[in-house]
């Protein structure tokens, strides 16, 4: 991973961002944060409908179809900006515990979202309000929110990876 990181940092794209990093990295990060806002906002709105705390004038399928296209677009934007940040500073990500924990949580979060879309999409009538009142559904919804909050925490902790002590492969400790 160390050699791979070093190799990435010698590529043209990496050097380009490194040479302009003073404005480029905060800008790419800011776009990344806007993307996070779209994801967490979309997840929250669908969760509110599942938990029957809002959007009750709309069916669950309608709320999902309102927000999931934005969720998809934001995930793509996050992947692109995330990749740019990784290419610019490969060791910062690849040699941190937080980054890999974040990637694992994203896989889980997207897995839950995909499963949700396919079940709601196939059985719209089944997901009536009685089904939504089930404790297991409510628990799963709260867990999904926790997963995405966890993604945000892990993302920020990349800059503070030293807090993981011996779990952190690098000595990075500069807060950015």
């Amino acid at each position, binding site marked *: 991973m160390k050699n791979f990181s070093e190799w990435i940092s010698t590529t043209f794209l990496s050097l380009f961002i490194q040479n302009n990093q003073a404005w480029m990295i905060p800008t790419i990060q800011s776009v990344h944060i806007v993307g996070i*806002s779209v994801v967490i906002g979309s997840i929250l709105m669908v969760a509110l409908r599942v938990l029957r705390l809002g959007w009750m004038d709309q069916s669950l399928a309608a709320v999902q179809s309102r927000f999931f296209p934005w969720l998809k677009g934001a995930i793509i934007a996050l992947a692109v900006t995330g990749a740019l940040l990784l290419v610019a500073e490969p060791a910062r990500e690849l040699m941190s515990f937080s980054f890999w924990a974040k990637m694992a949580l994203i896989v889980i979060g997207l897995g839950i979202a995909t499963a949700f879309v396919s079940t709601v999409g196939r059985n719209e009538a089944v997901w009536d309000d009685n089904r939504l009142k089930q404790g297991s559904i409510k628990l799963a919804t709260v867990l999904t929110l926790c997963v995405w909050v966890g993604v945000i925490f892990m993302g920020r902790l990349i800059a503070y990876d030293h807090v993981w002590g011996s779990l952190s492969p690098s000595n990075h400790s500069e807060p950015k």
Partner: protein
Amino acid sequence: MTFTDILNAVAAWAVSDYIRGALLAFPLLESAHVVFLTLVFGTILIVDLRLLGVASINRTFGALESDIIKWTWFAFAGAVLTGALMFITNPTVYFENVPFRIKMILLLCAGLNMLIFEQFTRRKYKDFEGTAAAPRPARIAAVLSLVLWTGVIGAGRVIGFTTSHVAVALPPAAENLDFDDFLTSDAPAPAPAQ
């Protein structure tokens, strides 16, 4: 008592000292701050997109806003609390920081924009609830909102690159040091003062 005295007094609080020195406190506060701010921006975005007639147009503005506004306020309160707890670790540095000042001004402008919208625009155009795009003043407020809040995010990010919550003590200046000696001689530089 000057304002600087107040800032220094805040820096000396036990809670300030704790957050400054603890391993996990500042990183966790900053992470929580990101969760809250993304919820603020995310919920405001939904409302602004409705005003612009881009999304959620099958709902009236009133119905949409009443669902969302409590979450925006909850998230904003969380952002202010976590922000304040970070601020107190190094008040003078943050207060002097230009991006921080810009962020505070942008926040004020965003708040003012929301106030004007709620108190004037919305009342004047009571009937727009059912239409796709809102009347022009409301759309202007929506665009302003998005620009201002994006600015808050950008300025906030730059604060992180231009400050530290750790008060760094500069090493004491060495005595009788002539820097030209380093140019002309092979003598090693003196060890840094501990």
